[in-house]
């Protein structure tokens, strides 16, 4: 990955367009046209610990969406389920509005903390969806069993919904209920894709190399296993 980042200084690799990411700009535009808010939630994960990666990836996208919304004078409604994430989300959204030269446009209730407890956070998010009837709902972050509940609430409110998550148990629910879903690594690469930063895009290419190595090792392991040699399987299983 570090080699790919270094190489990106001279040649920037191309990332294939992702339908879900392309749809975000259109979805924010839809909210602008309808005069309704954009609801964004990075879930109830913390910015530290085992759920940090999807939460940070979600906050990354919050900055991008916040800038789009500020540019178009569209109201943002952000619900957060962890105190640490709340502090970071508030700062990310404020700085997005400041960069667009519209710090006053950010309302006091733009970012609201619900609860650290899963279903209390769910109720908080449902409440905002039902009261504010957003035109667009973006669920980009860490989600567990509440995924299907919030996604269906977006459908009931008539919103276009885009989800991104790394919890592979919840991905089918998002796929079933949302208009677009960023699956696993697509979501983790989303921030790099929208940033156009060569180093970040380079690291995505590095990830693909690592995946290719993992697939090659798995295929070699299968062939060795077929011929009775278990050394690769034993090594990978450690």
């Amino acid at each position, binding site marked *: *990955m*570090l080699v790919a*980042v270094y190489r990106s200084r001279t040649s920037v690799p191309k990332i294939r367009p992702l339908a879900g990411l392309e749809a975000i700009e259109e979805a924010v535009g839809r909210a602008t046209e309808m005069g309704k808010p954009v609801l964004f939630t990075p879930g109830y994960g913390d910015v*530290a610990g085992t759920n940090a*990666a999807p939460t*940070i*990836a979600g*906050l*990354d996208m919050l*900055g991008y969406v916040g*800038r789009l919304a500020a540019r178009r004078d569209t109201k943002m409604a952000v619900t957060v389920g962890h*105190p*640490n994430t*709340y*502090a970071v989300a508030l*700062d*990310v959204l*404020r*700085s*997005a509005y*400041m*960069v667009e030269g519209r710090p006053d446009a950010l309302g006091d*209730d733009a970012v*609201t*903390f619900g609860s650290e*407890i*899963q*279903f209390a956070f*769910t*109720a908080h998010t449902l409440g905002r969806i039902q009261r504010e009837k957003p035109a667009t709902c973006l669920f980009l972050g860490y989600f567990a*069993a*509440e995924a*299907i*509940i919030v996604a*269906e609430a977006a*459908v009931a409110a008539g919103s276009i919904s885009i989800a991104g998550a*790394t919890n*592979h148990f919840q*991905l089918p*629910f998002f*796929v*079933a*209920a949302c208009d677009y879903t960023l*699956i*696993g*690594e697509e*979501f*983790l*690469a989303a*921030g*790099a894709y929208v*940033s156009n930063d060569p*180093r*970040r895009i380079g*690291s*995505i290419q590095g*990830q693909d190399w*690592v*995946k290719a190595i*993992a697939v090659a090792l798995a295929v070699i392991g299968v062939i060795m296993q077929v011929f009775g040699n278990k050394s690769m399987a034993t090594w990978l299983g450690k």
Partner: protein
Amino acid sequence: MKRELPVFLTAITGLILLADYYFNIPALKPYASAMQNWGVIIAAFTLALAAANLIKIHTLRVSRGGRIGTVLPSLVLLTGLFVTIFSGIFLGRSSPSFSFIFNNMYTPLAAAFYAMTAFHLASASYRAFRARSAQAAVLLITGVLLMLGRAPIGETIWSRFPKIADWIMGVGNLAGSRGIMISIAVGVIGVSMRVLTGIDRAHLGAE
């Protein structure tokens, strides 16, 4: 400096904690332990900030008045918040009032929410299973086979349905899940590397 200092602190903290996790270096242990304690202290401050936001927003909503549908939920939230805080801090977490709130209010409400997923799943599945494209048709067929294989009536209709369902879960589904899991693991390593090296600084705000 506003951006460089957080990146530097993130890198130092991350590297010390990673080194402490993967290697047995006695000299690092006190620093790693201290950093984890600082994390707990910072979390206490952010909880206060988040709770202040919650109280401010709902107090404003109550004081502004308006429709009962807007004011009442905020009033219920504030009452519940202060009653729970009072009974937890002044009467203790093992007090009858705190236990009553937990066992008779919080637990049934959480269970009710969890139970709602069944209804949401049914409506989401209904929309997803409409065979509008080849992929949706495959999803529909797989879903029907799986339901017939898992429900008792399926085995009564044809004894092979459970075996087909086991094959779908054990081969097709497992292979797909593992592919996604490998890519997620690589992606998580990528995000961590970008944050630790300061390549990814979006969480520090827009530049």
